[in-house]
């Protein structure tokens, strides 16, 4: 790599710190000001943000729409469930490591098959394969617990440094688990930022924008797509692993394809054309869903209407919409300055 490229990458990392730093500071202060319920909701939001972050490496940066990311989220979650129930793992870090490896293996296998296709066939193939896992989790109830799922207790964090027993354990769990997830979230964002800014990430974007030209440059398109798929699935699997202790239970619902739809929804809500879009979208989606579920029996309808309205009226999502708005304000200011 040239020196110029290196300087560019350092510059982009500085940019991430400039925007991300204040946001991270605000996130650090949340448990101080918000009540435990809000904190817990935000924890869920951050977990889904990691999932959407991984998902968007495929949709936003590689141009492949997966309708089967429930498989990798669920694989992360179920691996944690198996490790805790069958192998007696008590350390959260060990469980996460297992979940990440599990989802990485499955996404490597599924990805190897799926990247032979693009567009609609890719979407249908990812969906079909994710449903294989769903039906197995659903039918082999003596292994997976069927629709009852697998119960996972609150595991000790940081190698037993923080454990949850005695008085006020639940409250302590909510607060410390928030920080725990936040740490994973910040590291994931930084790592993903490095990935999309790296030559590898730029190559993915060139494949997305013009497959034929990329192929003329001698890029092995399928291999790049496969690697992107594995990274994407692994991030989503990490989210699944982090999600289980929070939820206390893993059920086949998170392997079912409508959950894949929710991950797509989050990314589109925030705007999949930008790096931050899926992160914002996941957090907003989670609050939106929580309040919709609390306020009406027909929350699905509400979410469906929001999704349709978004696609028809605001295809850039929240972040895209804001960017457009700020551009318009700046243009107007320029015009005023000119006259």
């Amino acid at each position, binding site marked *: 790599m040239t020196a110029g490229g290196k300087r560019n990458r350092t510059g982009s990392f500085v940019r991430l710190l400039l925007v991300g730093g204040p946001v991270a500071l605000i996130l650090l202060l949340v448990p101080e000001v918000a009540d435990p319920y809000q904190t817990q909701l935000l924890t869920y939001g951050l977990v889904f943000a990691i999932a959407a972050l991984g998902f968007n490496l495929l949709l936003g940066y590689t141009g492949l729409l997966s309708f089967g990311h429930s498989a990798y989220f669920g694989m992360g979650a179920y691996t944690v469930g198996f490790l805790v129930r069958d192998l007696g793992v008590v350390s959260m870090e060990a469980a996460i490591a297992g979940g990440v490896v599990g989802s990485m293996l499955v996404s490597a296998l599924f990805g190897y098959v799926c990247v032979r296709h693009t567009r609609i066939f890719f979407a249908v193939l990812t969906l079909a394969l994710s449903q*294989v896992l769903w039906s197995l989790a659903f039918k082999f109830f003596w292994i997976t617990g069927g629709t009852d799922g697998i119960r996972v207790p609150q595991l000790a964090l940081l190698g037993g440094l923080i454990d949850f027993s005695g008085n006020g354990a639940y409250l302590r769990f909510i607060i410390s688990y928030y920080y725990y997830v936040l740490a994973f979230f910040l590291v994931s964002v930084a790592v993903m930022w490095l990935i999309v800014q790296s030559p590898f990430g730029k190559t993915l974007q060139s494949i997305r924008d013009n497959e034929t030209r990329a192929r003329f440059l001698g890029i092995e398109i399928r291999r790049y797509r496969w690697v992107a798929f594995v990274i994407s699935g692994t991030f989503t699997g990490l989210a699944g692993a982090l999600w289980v202790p929070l939820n206390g239970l893993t059920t086949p619902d998170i392997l079912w394809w409508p959950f894949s739809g929710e991950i797509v929804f989050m990314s589109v809500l925030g705007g999949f054309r930008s790096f931050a879009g899926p992160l914002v979208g996941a957090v907003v989606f989670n609050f939106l869903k929580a309040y919709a579920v609390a306020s009406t029996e027909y929350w699905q309808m509400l979410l469906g209407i929001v999704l349709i309205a978004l696609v028809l009226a605001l295809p850039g999502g929240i972040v895209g919409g804001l960017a457009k708005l700020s551009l318009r304000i700046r243009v107007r200011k320029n015009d005023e300055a000119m006259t």
Partner: protein
Amino acid sequence: MDIFIIQVLNSFFYASVLFLLAAGLSLIFGVMGIVNLAHGSLYALGAYVTAWTVTSIGGDLPLVVLLLLLPAGAVAVAAVGLVMEPTLIRPLYKRPEEYQLLVTFGLLLVLEDVMRLLFGGTPLSAGTVMDKLGSVPIRSLYYPTYNFLVIVIGALAALCLWFFIYRTRFGVLLRATSQDMRMASALGLNIGRVYIQAFGLGCFMAGLGGAIVVPSQAAVLGMGIDNLVLAFVVVVIGGLGSLKGALIGALVVSFVRTIMVQFFPEIELAVLYLIAAGVLLVRPTGLFGKPS
């Protein structure tokens, strides 16, 4: 042996329903290039409307009237389709296909709750039709007469659709649009009208599938989402956009499913999804799809 005959009949019964569902999905994709994720929910809507019509209006009316009431679901769903296409789908033709998947996923969420709102959370059945038709003795066992009717309807639907697409003027327009939309448009075809007709017809078939299944299986929430994935398997095996493919695919899925349920019930669904994935790998366009 008797069980075997029953299972073969069951497979044909299920293939009829699945064909109607998958052929609609395939027709809409073939002509308009849209994968409609709400298609399964339209099928469920057809089932609900028919069950509601038969139980609330039908009451104690004679059997013939009840049978005539069955298509109510199909007509209602076609009407929904005719409203949906111009308002929600038409703005998306020029956008990348990801957006079409998203809008139809949004529609799926809306439709699922509309059904919950209109018909409540309890299963709704039109079982009186099936009961009144009685059953036919097959050696030592009895088989519901209604199931034969469904098999006949499925076969008739396949025939009608084939005639429609390959022997009528409307079919020529459909095929022309599906092969080359721009050229058809340049030759003076009203593409908008072809699209709305194709979408309406596809929805009608999904609704009919739901309508004929509901006398033997009650309409429940979520039935559409489950069946959509099976319809996907059918069209992936047969080839998206192919009528013959939808028929063969429906038969393959139904028979494989019956065999699996009989011998390996745990992996029944997994095997179907794996077959679909395998076909996509070996022949991406399905057994009867046109190579792109």
